[in-house]
């Protein structure tokens, strides 16, 4: 026979599949603590579980509270990693630009480059080209997504999307850098390929 607490947690998890395990884990911790407190006051185990579940609230109340408080599109843990992922996506392009600038300054314009021409014959060449162009764009998109922190709350009719700015220094710096790099690369790419027809334009 399933205990009242276990039954409650099963129902809660079934009603909130998108809320993740955290709500259920915290509910379990809370209910067990309340059960232990009641049992310490000589309440019988099953009765203690029933009382704990009753004071925790109806499943409907919890579901409403979760919806009213909005679920983030991205969890805080994911948002914490975004600056680093964005940096990683922008880094190859930053290195590429830096190498080209150094070569230009050194008067080696049009030279073989830091990798020589070995990459041109590599099966990875196309992938690297795409990474150089789209990496900073993707990074910028990720930073915008993390910064704006869109949340959906359930209204009487449909859903309401709200945008909450959560700007940290790290996100700001990486957002500006990836935005500038993405802009520069896309402008360069368009300028170089503007006479080509079709999509994607020649070169990619």
């Amino acid at each position, binding site marked *: 026979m399933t205990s009242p607490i276990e039954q409650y947690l099963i129902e809660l998890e079934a009603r909130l599949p998108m809320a993740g395990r*955290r*709500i259920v*884990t*915290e*509910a379990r*911790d*809370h209910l*067990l*603590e*309340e059960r232990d407190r009641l049992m310490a006051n000589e309440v019988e185990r099953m009765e203690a579980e029933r009382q704990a579940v009753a*004071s*925790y*609230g*109806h499943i409907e*109340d*919890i579901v*409403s*509270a*979760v919806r*009213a*408080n*909005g679920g*983030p599109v991205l969890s*805080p843990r994911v948002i914490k990693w975004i600056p680093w992922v964005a940096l990683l996506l922008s880094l190859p392009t930053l290195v590429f630009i830096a190498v080209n600038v150094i070569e230009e300054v050194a008067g080696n314009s049009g030279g073989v480059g830091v990798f020589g021409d070995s990459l041109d014959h590599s099966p990875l060449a196309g992938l690297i080209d795409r990474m150089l162009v789209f990496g900073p764009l993707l990074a910028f998109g990720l930073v915008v997504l993390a910064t704006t*922190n869109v*949340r959906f709350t359930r209204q009487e009719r449909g859903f309401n999307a709200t945008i*909450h700015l*959560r700007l940290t220094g790290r996100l700001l710096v990486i957002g500006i850098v990836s935005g500038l790099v993405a802009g520069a690369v896309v402008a360069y790419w368009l300028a170089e390929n503007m006479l080509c027809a079709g999509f994607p334009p020649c070169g990619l």
Partner: protein
Amino acid sequence: MRGEAIKGHLDMLLLAVLEDGDAHGYAVIEGLRETSNGAFDLPEGTVYPALHRLERERYVASQWNKSSGRKRRVYSLTARGRKALTDRRSEWAGFSRAVGTVIGL
């Protein structure tokens, strides 16, 4: 006091409880109940989504802690949360003064 009446002030109350020190959800709810002498009667489970929202808004931070064999999320007030609490206390003081004047307290 019913949950509906508390809803608009729940953020301030939760931040105020956490001002006394880090606590897991159960302790936060106990703190709320004790300091209000049981006046705040709201389903305990509805406090967690509010704590999660406060965390998303960076008013509180949290981390998992395993004590006495049980996995717990421990919440703490951030500097931003402390500032928000100060602001809300000030708003509340002004609001309650104004209401008190009108109703003749």
